């Protein structure tokens, strides 16, 4: 499997990253390099091996259901670009 220039442009758009034309071909080469690596790994016989979903073979620790975070709105909003009525203001988005 390899990615076309159009695939790269689409992935960049989905990730909201601006990529211009010559960058795109450089990324295409890098991404295809990674995919090639994966293809190599896929040649390994993994029959009977349970897949891991994390690089570390340990499990998630759970925390007790307790409220531990105080209200720090004033501190957080002091560094926000725009606030009003306790809300964070962002450029208008309507889907």
């Amino acid at each position: 499997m390899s990615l076309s220039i159009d695939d790269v442009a689409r992935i960049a758009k989905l990730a909201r990253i601006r990529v211009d034309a010559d960058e795109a071909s450089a990324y295409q080469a890098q991404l295809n390099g990674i995919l090639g690596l994966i293809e190599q790994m896929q040649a390994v016989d993994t029959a009977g091996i349970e897949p891991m979903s994390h690089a570390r073979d340990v499990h998630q620790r759970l925390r007790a259901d307790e409220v531990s975070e105080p209200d720090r709105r004033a501190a957080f909003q002091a560094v926000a670009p725009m606030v009003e009525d306790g809300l964070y203001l962002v450029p208008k988005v309507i889907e």
Partner: protein
Amino acid sequence: MNGARWETVIGLEVHAQLSTRSKIFSGAATAFGAAPNTQACAVDLALPGVLPVLNRGAVERAIRFALAIGARINRINVFDRKNYFYPDLPKGYQISQFALPIVEAGALTIGVDDGEKVIRITRAHLEEDAGKSLHEDYHGMTGIDLNRAGTPLLEIVSEPDMRSAKEAVAYARALHTLVTWIGICDGNMQEGSFRVDANVSVRPVGQREFGTRREIKNLNSFRFLEQAIDYEARWQIERIEDGHAIEQATVLFDPDSGETRMMRSKEEAHDYRYFPDPDLLPVKLDEDWIEQLRSALPELPAQKRARYQADLGLSAYDAGALTASRATAEYFEALLAALPQADAKLAANWVMGDLSAALNKVERDIADSPVAPAALASLLGRVQDGTLSGKLAKQVFEAMWAGEGDADTIIAARGLRQLSDSGAIEALIDEVMAANAKSVEEFRAGKEKAFNALVGQVMKASKGKANPAQVNALLRRKLTGMD
């Protein structure tokens, strides 16, 4: 295609907000109605360097749900990132479960016209809610409140097993009853604690393949769910009969017009690029914990329904109504236990009749009924021992509701004791017969209607207090000369 008979196929995705005190990945509070952003901590805001830590209470509630629907619990389950950009989702992804959800393959039985139907539940997974966008009044800007961001949700996905809007509503109601029953969700639909998405498609009756579906998003009442599905199915049938194909799309229901309208088409559909979240390790569930939760599960609605029919001799309808909520079932059981003589039908009739009518009138929940089960039991005890007729009992109930005291106090204060003294009743009958000679004659000439008129007169003469069964028997004896 014209004249073909159509079948509607529906699957539901329900987002149940889990009733934890804190958020799924942070220690911020989840209480409803707080001032904007006062319950949004650094993790919820996705400030740099923060890490999610999973809330044990959310996992516990998902396990309880799995046990209640007889589902498989994945002992190892994994959180994934669902990527999309929207300002009320500060991380740029929602933490959800994709390939390995915590709950898979359960079922829920619903009541339908001709009995029961099993609706299969494909999966239920844990995820975090997004924040809220306010599009009005901010000088052309959008206001963002992140209090809801990170609130734990259980997304419950059914198989496309429902065939009408009515069945979809029955399933949604049964699910709502269950999640509130086992205490994992408060079920408050106005506050968005229980939201429904409906996948709807149509196909000619007899066709095996499903039609193309459209998804109706975010229905927050059972009435809207029914209206939206009915409208959507009719719309799809008309489109197909007019020669168009249905295109996969996401639609919104407008309660004002009663119509659905397109939100986004398949081309604009999101590409979420799910992948395991490296910030969270796989979750491993301990057998002892699961067993402990299994043994702590209350008797479930379906089990109670079966028991009410088998052991108490109630009808399927009564058993269904009494298990519509856990509070109703608990009230009924407390009332039945407190009755001097066990009479499930009497208790059921009062809970479903006068009590629920009175509660509905003031929109009050049965759990805070002003007339407690013990108080109602003492009233019904007076019906059982013949002190009160059914009609007088209703009067006493109204007085109890109005706070005039317990049943015996009201009976004494209002002189409502039923008249059961045969001598006194016979005296009344003699008076009424003398004053209504015409009715007496008509009855003797074979007019049964005249009998009812005379009973009415006797009851009136007793100010409603005469024991109706005794009046009937004594009057008939006198009229037919058997006295």
